[in-house]
C-alpha cells in the first residue's frame, strides 16, 4: 500500500514536473521562453495542456503569486493540476499574450484539436493549420494522420504533413512532399513551392538540390493550373449570380417599360418596398412563430409580390394613367413617386439599414471545387430568378391576361376594338411588373443591405439592362442581364469594381449609338414612335 502510494506520488510528480516548469515558463517567461513552452505543452498531448493554452488564448490565464490559475468568471482552477481553487486569491494578474504568441497559440491549439473526437473540431483545426504551421508539430500531425479516416480531412492532413516535411526532412521525404503538394489547390501551397524555387540575390537557389527543384516546378504548374480553374469557376459563378440579380431587377421593368412603354423611375423603390415587406414578414415570424422562422420566406415571397403589386396598381390608377403618351412627364412624375416612397419608408422604418436574416438553409455555402465556396443564398437567387422568368413567360404566352397584354402592346386601338378592356389590362400589367420588382426586393434582402436607398442603386442598372436588351422582348432582357453580369465581373477582376462599372456604362452608351433599338428589336417600319 505504501509502496503503491509512493509510486503513485512519484509518477504524479514526474508527470507534472514537466508540466509545472512549462506552465510557469508560459506564465512568467519572456516571449521566447513562452513559445518554447507552448511547443512543449503541445508535444505532451495532455488534455490539461489544451485547457491551459485555450485559457491563455481567451485571456483567462492569470497568476497569483507563484500560482498559475485559470479563471472563468468567479471560479478558478489550478492550471497545473486542474483542481478547484477557492477562495479566489485577491491579488491576481492576467497573462498577456502578444501577437506573436497569439499566432503560435492558434497553431498549437489547432494541433491539439487534430486528435479531437469531433469531426467538426478536426476539420476546423486542419483548416487552421493549412494556413501555415510550425514544423515542430510534425510528429503531432503524423500521429493524427495515422488515426484519421475521414475522406475530406485525410488529404488535407497529408498536405500539411508534406508542407512540414518540405521545411526539414530527408531528400526522399522532401521529394515525396513536393510531389504530394502538386495535388493541392491551396494558394498557400503555391507560395510554398515558389519559395522552393526562389533565387537568392547572389544567384544561388534557395533550394540547392536540382532534383527537388525540378519536381517543385512540375508541382507548381499543376497547382497553378488548378488555381486558375478555381478562379475562373468563381468568376463564372459570381457573373451568373450578378446577372440573375440584374435580371430580377430588370424583369419588372421589361414589362412596364418594354411592353407598356411607361418609364417608371419608381421601379427601384418598388424593389425596396418588396425588401421591406420581407423585413416586416421576418419580424412577424420572429415575434409570433419563432419555431417556423426558417419558413418565413415562403410567406415573404408572395407577400412582397402582393404589396409591391398593390402599390404599383395604385400608382397606375392615381398617376400614371393620366400621363400615357407623355413619356417625359411620366418619367418626372414617377421620380416624384419614388421620392415620396423613400421618405415614407424612412418615416415608418427609420433611415438606418434594417437587418434581414437568412433562414438557416440559406446561410453557409457549398464548396464546389478548388476551394471556391458558393453561398447558398446566391444559388437560391439564381434558381429563383430562373423560376420567375419561366413564370412570366408562361403568364405572357399561356394566359388570357398575357394575350391581352401582348395585344395591347402591339396595337392598342385594334385590341380595344375587339373588346379588350385596355385600361384594365394596363393596370394589371403594371401591377404585374411592380410585383416582380417586389420579388426582386425579396431576393435582394437576402444578400445585401436593406435601406431606404436600396432602389436607387438598381435603377440605373436595370434601365441599362432593358435599354440594352431592346424594348418589348423578354429574351433581350435575359441576354442583356447575363451579358452585363459577365462584363461587370470580368472587368472587375481585371480593373476593380468602379472602373468596371464605368467601362460597362460607356460601352452601353456606345452600343446604343450603333443599335438604338437594343439587341433584340421588334421589326417595324415606323419613322418614329
Amino acid at each position: 500500500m505504501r509502496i503503491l502510494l509512493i509510486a503513485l506520488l512519484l509518477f504524479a510528480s514526474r508527470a507534472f514536473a514537466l508540466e509545472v516548469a512549462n506552465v510557469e515558463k508560459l506564465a512568467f517567461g519572456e516571449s521566447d521562453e513562452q513559445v518554447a513552452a507552448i511547443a512543449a505543452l503541445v508535444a505532451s498531448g495532455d488534455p490539461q495542456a489544451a485547457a491551459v493554452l485555450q485559457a491563455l488564448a481567451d485571456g483567462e490565464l492569470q497568476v497569483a503569486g507563484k500560482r498559475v490559475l485559470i479563471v472563468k468568471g468567479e471560479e478558478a482552477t489550478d492550471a497545473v493540476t486542474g483542481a478547484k481553487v477557492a477562495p479566489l486569491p485577491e491579488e491576481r494578474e492576467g497573462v498577456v499574450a502578444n501577437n506573436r504568441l497569439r499566432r503560435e497559440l492558434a497553431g498549437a491549439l489547432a494541433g491539439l484539436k487534430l486528435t479531437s473526437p469531433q469531426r467538426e473540431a478536426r476539420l476546423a483545426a486542419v483548416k487552421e493549420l493549412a494556413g501555415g504551421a510550425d514544423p515542430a508539430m510534425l510528429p503531432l500531425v503524423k500521429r493524427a494522420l495515422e488515426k484519421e479516416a475521414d475522406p475530406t480531412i485525410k488529404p488535407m492532413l497529408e498536405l500539411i504533413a508534406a508542407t512540414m516535411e518540405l521545411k526539414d526532412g530527408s531528400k526522399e521525404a522532401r521529394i515525396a512532399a513536393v510531389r504530394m503538394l502538386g495535388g493541392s489547390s491551396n494558394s498557400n501551397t503555391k507560395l510554398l513551392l515558389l519559395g522552393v524555387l526562389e533565387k537568392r540575390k547572389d544567384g544561388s537557389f534557395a533550394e540547392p538540390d536540382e532534383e527537388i527543384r525540378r519536381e517543385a516546378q512540375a508541382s507548381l504548374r499543376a497547382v497553378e493550373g488548378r488555381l486558375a480553374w478555381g478562379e475562373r469557376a468563381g468568376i463564372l459563378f459570381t457573373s451568373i449570380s450578378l446577372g440573375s440579380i440584374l435580371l430580377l431587377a430588370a424583369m419588372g421593368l421589361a414589362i412596364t417599360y418594354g411592353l407598356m412603354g411607361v418609364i417608371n423611375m419608381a421601379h427601384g423603390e418598388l424593389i425596396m418596398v418588396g425588401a421591406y415587406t420581407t423585413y416586416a414578414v421576418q419580424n412577424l415570424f420572429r415575434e409570433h412563430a419563432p419555431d417556423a422562422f426558417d419558413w418565413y420566406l415562403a410567406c415573404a415571397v408572395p407577400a412582397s409580390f402582393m404589396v409591391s403589386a398593390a402599390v404599383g396598381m395604385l400608382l397606375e390608377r392615381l398617376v400614371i394613367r393620366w400621363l400615357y403618351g407623355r413619356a417625359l412627364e411620366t418619367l418626372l412624375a414617377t421620380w416624384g413617386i419614388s421620392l415620396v416612397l423613400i421618405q415614407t419608408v424612412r418615416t415608418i422604418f427609420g433611415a438606418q439599414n434594417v437587418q434581414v436574416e437568412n433562414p438557416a438553409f440559406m446561410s453557409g455555402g457549398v464548396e464546389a471545387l478548388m476551394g471556391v465556396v458558393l453561398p447558398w443564398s446566391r444559388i437560391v437567387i439564381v434558381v429563383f430568378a430562373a423560376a420567375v422568368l419561366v413564370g412570366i413567360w408562361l403568364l405572357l404566352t399561356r394566359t388570357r391576361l398575357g394575350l391581352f397584354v401582348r395585344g395591347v402592346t402591339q396595337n392598342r386601338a385594334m385590341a380595344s376594338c375587339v373588346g379588350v378592356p385596355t385600361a384594365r389590362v394596363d393596370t394589371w400589367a403594371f401591377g404585374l411588373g411592380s410585383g416582380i420588382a417586389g420579388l426582386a426586393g425579396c431576393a435582394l434582402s437576402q444578400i445585401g443591405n436593406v435601406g431606404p436607398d436600396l432602389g436607387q442603386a438598381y435603377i440605373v442598372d436595370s434601365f441599362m439592362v432593358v435599354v440594352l436588351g431592346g424594348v418589348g422582348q423578354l429574351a433581350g432582357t435575359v441576354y442583356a442581364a447575363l451579358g452585363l453580369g459577365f462584363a461587370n465581373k470580368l472587368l472587375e477582376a481585371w480593373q476593380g469594381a468602379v472602373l468596371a462599372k464605368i467601362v460597362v456604362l460607356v460601352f452601353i452608351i456606345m452600343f446604343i449609338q450603333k443599335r438604338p433599338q437594343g439587341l433584340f428589336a421588334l421589326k417595324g417600319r415606323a419613322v418614329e414612335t
Partner: protein
Amino acid sequence: MGPVSLLIARLYGPRGWMTLAAFALALFVVFPLCNLAIPEGNPLHLSAYWVSLVGKIMCYAIVALAMDLAWGYAGILSLGHGLFFALGGYAFGMYLMRQIGSDGQYKANMPDFMVFLDWKEFPWAWWNSDQFWWCALLVVLVPGLLAFVFGFFAFRSRIKGVYFSIITQALTYAAMLLFFRNATGFGGNNGFTDFKRILDIPVAIPSTRMALFAITAATLIGSLLLGRYIVTSKFGRILAAIRDAESRVMFCGYNPVHYKLAIWTFSAVLCGIAGALYVPQVGIINPSEMSPANSIEIAIWVAVGGRGTLVGAIVGAGLVNGAKSYFTQAFPEYWLYVLGLIFILVTLFMPKGVVGLWSQWKNRSA
C-alpha cells in the same frame, strides 16, 4: 404667331422689360447696399447668409435656363445636366485649390488631399491649373466638348425622348462613380473645399462675396437675354419645329442634328459657367453634384416654372430652391414629400407651370 412666339411676345412686352429692370435694380443696387452699406443690427441689413443663398439660387437659375433651352425649346430632356454643372465647378475649383497655396493643413504647396494621398506631383489634368485664364477656359471647354461629342453620337443615331434621357442619366452616374475614386485626382469623396483666395483676393470677405454675387446676377440676366435672342431667332423657330415634329422638319430639308447639337452644347456650356460661379460662393464641390437625383431636380425647376418660357425656368429654380432651403431647415423630414409631390402635381395638373397658370388666370379675368 404660333403659341411659342405669343408667349415670348407677352413675356417681353413693355411690362416684361420693366420687371426685368426692377429685378436688375434689386440685384445690383438693393442687395449690395443692404449688405455692405447698412450696418449689422439694422433691420434693413442683409446678412451674408442671404447673399450666398440668393447667389446660389441664381446659379441654379442659370442651369434651369440652360435646361429650358434644351428641353423647353428643342424637346431634349437631359437627366445629366448636373454633370456639366459639376464639371464647370471642378474646372474652376482646381484654380481655387491652387490659390490656397501653402495655407492648407499640411502647409504644402499642394492641395491637402494630394498630400494625404502622398502624391509628389500634380496629375496631368491639373496642368497649368494655377492660371486663372486656363481654368476659365476649361470651365467652357470641358462641358462643351463632352456635350458636343456625346451629343454628336447620340443625335446622329437619332436617339431621342426617354432613351436620350436615360442615357444621359447613365452618363452622369458613370461620371459620379469616376469622381468618387481618389485615383481620379479630384479629391474623391470630399471633392474640393476650404478655398482661401480668388485672384489673390480673400474669398470669404463681404466685398468679394458681393462681387461674385454681382457677376452671377449679370451672367443670369445676360443668359436670359441671350436665350431670348436665340429662341426668337430663325434658329429658335426651327428648334421648336424639331421639338414638335422632328421628321417633318427633316423632310423639309433641315438637318435636325446640327440644330440639336448646337443648342445642346450651348446649354452644357451655360451649365459649366453656372457651376464655376457656384463653387466660390458655396465653397465646396464634390461628386454628389453629379448624382442622377440632382440632375432630375433641375428638370423639375423648369417644369414648375413653365417649360419653353425662359423666365419660367428662373422662377421655378427660385421657387423650388427657396422652398428647399426653407423646408430643409424647418421640417427636414418633410422635404422629400414636398419635392415628390411637386414632381407629381406639376406634371399632372400644371403642364405649363407657374408662368402658365398666371397667364391662364389673366386670360380668364380679362
